[in-house]
């Protein structure tokens, strides 16, 4: 009897990891090479950043609210009335280090990663990728490098923006619940460190690279017609979301809790 697991061959996975690694390497080299595709880079900054603002605002606001809600309940129930104001630093820490980077990463993967796979995939099946080669433009330099750089910059920017939205919403939730606003604020400012925020932003930058590379990789691999583009799009979102979640855990694990001394 043959085990189905055998067809899910190990060397196929290795090959795919190799493909992604190679694409990442060539993209990195091309980011530093001149001439740069400045026009496309700026377009992508807008596409990744500005056009994601609404989605990020909503997810960060409700992420912050629900986190504040449960923290409030936790303090209220287990420590007692009046202790809810100590929730401030916990909420801010959880938001800036984990929740917001993850939420922004997943949202951008869904919005931008899928669009990259669809756009590059369509170019592949309509021979526009071949046309790029024939006209002396390396698709990695022309398409992948500006997208990767834009995601690397914009996902942290969106995360910082989401941090602020989330923290502000959590603050107003607590104030609305009658928590002492002075104590809440003082605790937050006292215990939240710059490194907590920075750590989250570093992770977000890495997520940005993952989103762009996986989206481009799936796009460049696209075969077949519209169906192939659909498959590439779905795969780009699923694969990059899973990588983001797994990578997040390990990054959190290896990152020092605080910087320096």
């Amino acid at each position, binding site marked *: 009897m043959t085990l189905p697991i055998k067809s899910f061959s190990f060397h196929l996975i290795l090959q795919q990891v190799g493909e992604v690694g190679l694409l990442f390497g060539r993209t990195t080299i091309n980011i530093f090479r001149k001439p740069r595709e400045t026009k496309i880079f700026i377009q992508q900054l807008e596409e990744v950043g500005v056009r994601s603002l609404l989605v990020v605002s909503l997810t960060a606001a409700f992420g912050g609210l629900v986190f504040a809600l449960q923290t409030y309940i936790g303090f209220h129930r287990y420590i007692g009335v009046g202790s809810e104001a100590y929730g401030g630093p916990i909420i801010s820490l959880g938001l800036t280090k984990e929740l917001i980077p993850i939420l922004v990463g997943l949202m951008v993967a869904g919005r931008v990663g899928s669009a990259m796979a669809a756009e590059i995939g369509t170019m592949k099946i*309509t*021979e*526009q990728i*071949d046309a790029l*080669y*024939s*006209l002396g433009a390396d698709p990695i330099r022309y398409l992948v490098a500006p997208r990767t750089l834009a995601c690397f910059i914009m996902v942290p920017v969106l995360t910082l923006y989401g941090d602020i939205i989330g923290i502000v919403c959590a603050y107003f939730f607590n104030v609305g619940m009658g928590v002492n606003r002075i104590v809440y604020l003082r605790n937050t400012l006292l215990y939240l460190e710059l490194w907590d925020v920075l750590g989250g932003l570093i992770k977000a930058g890495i997520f940005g690279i993952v989103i762009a590379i996986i989206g481009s990789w799936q796009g460049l691999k696209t075969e077949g017609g519209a169906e192939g583009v659909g498959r590439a799009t779905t795969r780009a979102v699923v694969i990059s979301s899973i990588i983001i979640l797994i990578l997040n855990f390990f990054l959190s694990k290896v990152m020092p809790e605080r910087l320096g001394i």
Partner: protein
Amino acid sequence: MIRINDLHKSFGQNKVLQGINLHIQNGETLTIIGQSGSGKSVLLKHILGLIRPDRGSIIVDGVDICGSSEAELNNIRRKFGLLFQAAALFDSLTVAQNVSFGLERYRDLSPKELQKRVKETLAMVGLREIEQLMPHELSGGMKKRVGLARAIAYEPEIMLYDEPSTGIDPIRADAINELIIKMKQEFRITSVVITHDMISAYKVADRIAMLYNGKIVAVGTPEELRKSDNQIVQQFIHGRAEGPIKEW
């Protein structure tokens, strides 16, 4: 001078090219004829290094395309202009940006010169006042002609045309034949023209090669092919359903 030696290419079980041998002289126009799906486009893409063969070599002016790195290929490709069968215009760019795409990369021109050159090239393929349109606003035949303009804009030494007249009305198709002839006469361009259209093949070709079953089964001047006693060739050039070619 392009020398194609013993070129093989399969996609999975589908053996498309099975030992192509073909020499293309500088300044000549070679037409490749053959049925749909016989591998004409695949052959053309090999010449530009867009597809790597399983076996065999393609030597362009002494350089082996098949053994070249991407960086070397990039240099070799500036010699070539390729008109894609389905035009393959960049659909996020305007007509003007499409036509100037290769120009910007292969030539050092000021924006003003660039604009002028785009206008001239579009006029050469019979198009005017469409610079700011997007590809989806064009008809199929117009796309094809913009694709042609994009390929000839930077004055390549070798032009590869993949079915230049397919999808274009007979009058414009003949204008493109004239253009192919003019480019050869004025600029000494080497051309490889893929076509099903025998009228066009006779008109533009110095030599005609026929691709069948993954091989070049006949090559010669239009006159030689017309008189060929190869039944496959006779069936194709006369467009007969009856004959040695059974699958269609």
